[in-house]
């Protein structure tokens, strides 16, 4: 408030509206999409670890869904076949859960994925320090930069994990189809499988945003004077 007073007392003839600094949301989305498209291969590398991790999650989840469908038929032959293909089923089990071992592998793969994203995004920030500094010289606030990076990561996350989840799920279906034939498809609860794919996508989006958090903060705090640097 005190500072605003200084502006007024300095006699700058501009009204309150003029003090705004804005970057409309749709404009941010536009810029984010553009920079993903221009740096397509860079974005692809950032996204690829996400695609792999999410497709792994989706593969195991959808696999369990198919196995549950097979179990629900109550046929001992299918049950035996499931046990032979690696599912730990106790005699009293009526559904396939994720074993602790499997859950550990999933968590680990997600962790590795986040570290990969942080790494790739930090490099992206370093590559773009001049662009960020320039934007700040043109009047961008920290939060504009933060928002641009979050939007980019969000879009990459949505596309990457969407692709990963569908590919992983499809691969799981294909895998069971080869081993068990059509019965694996007919007994499958499609809503359950759909939920698994959607869940994996959601996890991927969250991971992408978590991974970009620190790099985006580094970018947002960058000083505008960085744009003046001549090296590079």
């Amino acid at each position, binding site marked *: 408030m005190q*500072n605003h007073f*200084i*502006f007024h007392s*300095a*006699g*700058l*003839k*501009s009204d309150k*509206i*003029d*003090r*705004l*600094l*804005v*970057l*409309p949301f749709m*404009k941010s989305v536009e*810029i984010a999409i*553009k*920079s993903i498209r*221009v*740096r397509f291969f860079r974005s692809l590398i950032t996204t690829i670890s996400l695609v792999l991790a999410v497709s792994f999650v989706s593969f195991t989840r959808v696999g369990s869904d198919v196995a549950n469908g097979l179990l629900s038929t109550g046929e001992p032959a299918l049950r035996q076949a499931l046990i032979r293909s690696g599912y730990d089923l106790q005699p009293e089990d009526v559904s396939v859960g994720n074993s602790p071992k499997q859950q550990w592998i999933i968590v680990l793969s997600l962790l590795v994925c986040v570290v990969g994203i942080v790494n790739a995004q930090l490099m992206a920030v370093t590559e773009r320090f*001049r*662009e960020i*500094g*320039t*934007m*700040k*010289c*043109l*009047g*961008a*606030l*920290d939060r*504009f930069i933060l928002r641009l990076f979050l939007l980019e990561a969000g879009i990459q996350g949505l596309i990457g994990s969407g692709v990963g989840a569908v590919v992983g799920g499809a691969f799981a279906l294909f895998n069971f189809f080869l081993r068990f034939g059509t019965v694996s498809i007919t007994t499958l609860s499609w809503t359950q499988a759909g939920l698994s794919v959607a869940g994996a996508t959601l996890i991927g989006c969250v991971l992408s945003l978590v991974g970009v958090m620190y790099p985006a903060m580094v970018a947002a705090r960058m*000083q*505008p*004077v960085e*744009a*003046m640097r*001549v090296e590079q």
Partner: protein
Amino acid sequence: MLSTGTVMTDSRKIVRVTHVTKSFKLGKLDVLALKGVDLEITAGNYISIMGPSGSGKSTLFNMIGGLDKPTTGKVFIDEVDIAQLDAYELAWLRCRKIGYIFQTFNIIQVMTALENVTLPMTFAGMADDAAAEKGIKLLEMVGLGDRFQHKPFELSGGQQQRVAIARALANDPAIILADEPTGNLDLNTGEEIIYLLKQLSRERGVTIISATHDIKMLNVSDQVVWIRDGRIDKIENRDELSISIGQIGTKPGHDTLSEC
């Protein structure tokens, strides 16, 4: 519209630097980059800050541009003490009051020429149509009327610098800060850019402050500020300058001077 006001009140001091020192920590050592600088810049003038590397030239330049704050002393831009401003107000100052031109052009690679020019206007809250219209006018003014849909990589260095000049003018700033604007350009293109800046300064009443090594700049400067060892060595006005250019030209030390 502020710029026309600037022309009328000709003696207005757009930048005032009083007793400014700046120290940096270099390991355990305190390095004094500026050792007490006083400088007043009159609105509408074309100022060149000259000095060898390490003279404190860039430090002073960054301070005038609101990119750095003094250790002691005060810097007033348009009578506003920049040390009093918070991050938001500094960003506002950079958006509305100051236009930046860089040695490396710094055109944002993902955007077309026009989008680069309209970005500061978007930040300032201007509607898209109005911004595009003004952006095209500005690009025509710098001689790129037919190239506004081009991406930066389709433009030559000189053309990119012209886009940067149009972008610097986007929000009708009172000051344009040019950091070695000709440093990455060949001789002719550099000269074109210098005359374009001079023309803008005259027609629009914009104060142009440039840090440079380029001796060509002297011809168009209203004032040259020589920095040496953290202090102002001398300030020469235009009328005194013609003499010293003659001297520089006749001196055998000419080459070393233009290099430093």
